[in-house]
């Protein structure tokens, strides 16, 4: 009994695997008998004897009838499609080459900028080196004189120095006499 059942299930597996190919060969079939027309005799015999496999075939027919309501998308593609794709490819190529141009333009510009800045630097340093010293020395005003901690000026004013010198000179003359 067990042998019979396992043999039967193996046959069912084979049937269900092969019925797919048979169904593909008869796309217009609406009934079991029509679908099995092109099937080998052994398949027909099995379908007659096995209710589960008959039900599987009926499922194929029923599902096919249901799905016939849906539109096919394959038919949407027309002669307009290939030129549209080629135009999209050309646009993408142009976009890529523009992007590539931008990246090659930058290093070229950078090289030119380097040259220009080197020349400018050279000219500027030459001018600075050779320019005449026309700038006047900064004048020191009495207000600008720094003071020490007591408030006395750090540098003695020129007039005071002269007075001291005269005083020392007069002392020296007196000693001579």
């Amino acid at each position: 009994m067990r042998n019979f059942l396992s043999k039967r299930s193996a046959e069912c597996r084979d049937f269900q695997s092969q019925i797919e190919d048979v169904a593909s060969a008869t796309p217009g079939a609406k009934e079991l008998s029509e679908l099995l027309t092109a099937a080998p005799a052994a398949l027909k015999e099995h379908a007659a004897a096995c209710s589960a496999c008959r039900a599987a075939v009926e499922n194929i027919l029923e599902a096919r009838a249901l799905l016939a309501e849906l539109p096919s998308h394959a038919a949407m593609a027309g002669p307009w499609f290939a030129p549209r794709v080629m135009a999209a490819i050309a646009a993408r190529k142009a976009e890529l080459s523009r992007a590539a141009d931008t990246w090659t333009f930058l290093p070229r510009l950078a090289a030119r900028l380097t040259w220009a800045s080197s020349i400018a630097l050279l000219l500027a340093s030459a001018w600075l080196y050779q320019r005449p010293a026309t700038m006047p020395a900064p004048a020191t005003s009495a207000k600008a004189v720094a003071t020490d901690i007591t408030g006395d000026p750090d540098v003695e004013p020129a007039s005071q120095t002269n007075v001291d010198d005269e005083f020392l000179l007069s002392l020296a003359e007196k000693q001579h006499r």
Partner: protein
Amino acid sequence: MPRVPKVEPHGPPAGAKPPAAKAPGAVDDRELVRRAQGEDQEAFEELIRRHQHRVFAVAGGILRRREDVEDIAQQVFVKAYFSLKRFDQRAAFSTWLYKITVNECWDLLRKKKVRPLVYESDLSEEQARQVIASEEKGGGGPDISDRLEARQRVERLLEGLDERDRLMLILKEVEGFAVEEIAQVLDLNANTVKVRLFRARRRIVNKVRKRGEE
């Protein structure tokens, strides 16, 4: 009972668009990729023409909104163009493209943080015009509001599924992808895709039945 024999995998369903419909003698993807890697614009344009339907289908399976799908599809091809030099052709160009598509879509959803489902109010003017036009052409078909309601109902049913299972179902039943292609898109084993499709169908059919009973 005899063991069920293996069936050779069939090609894509009759209603589905081939993954890369090539005219006899046309250059294969590998050659076009090689030329596009050498800056051949025409080769890349040819690759777009070959794969645009599949990219729209995958993006549509995840995003559903027309405007998003168009934008993402364009973004996928632009990204593919600028990454093409790094593509070593160890995988098929389509597989690589699907992966970019899926990643771009998940990224968009993460950014937007919205559910990728479309509701009636989300229909653009153009979509509404298309539905009306198809309605006028169809003549005696169901009323436009019935159709929109039915579509909305299906979207709600799908909402209950895991995102990957939903994408699998849409790619299989709406866009006509083969199981092997879905496996490529989601980077899964073909048998795993079959098992998950089987479970996803059972789940939505059970939901419909339950609702019918209520």
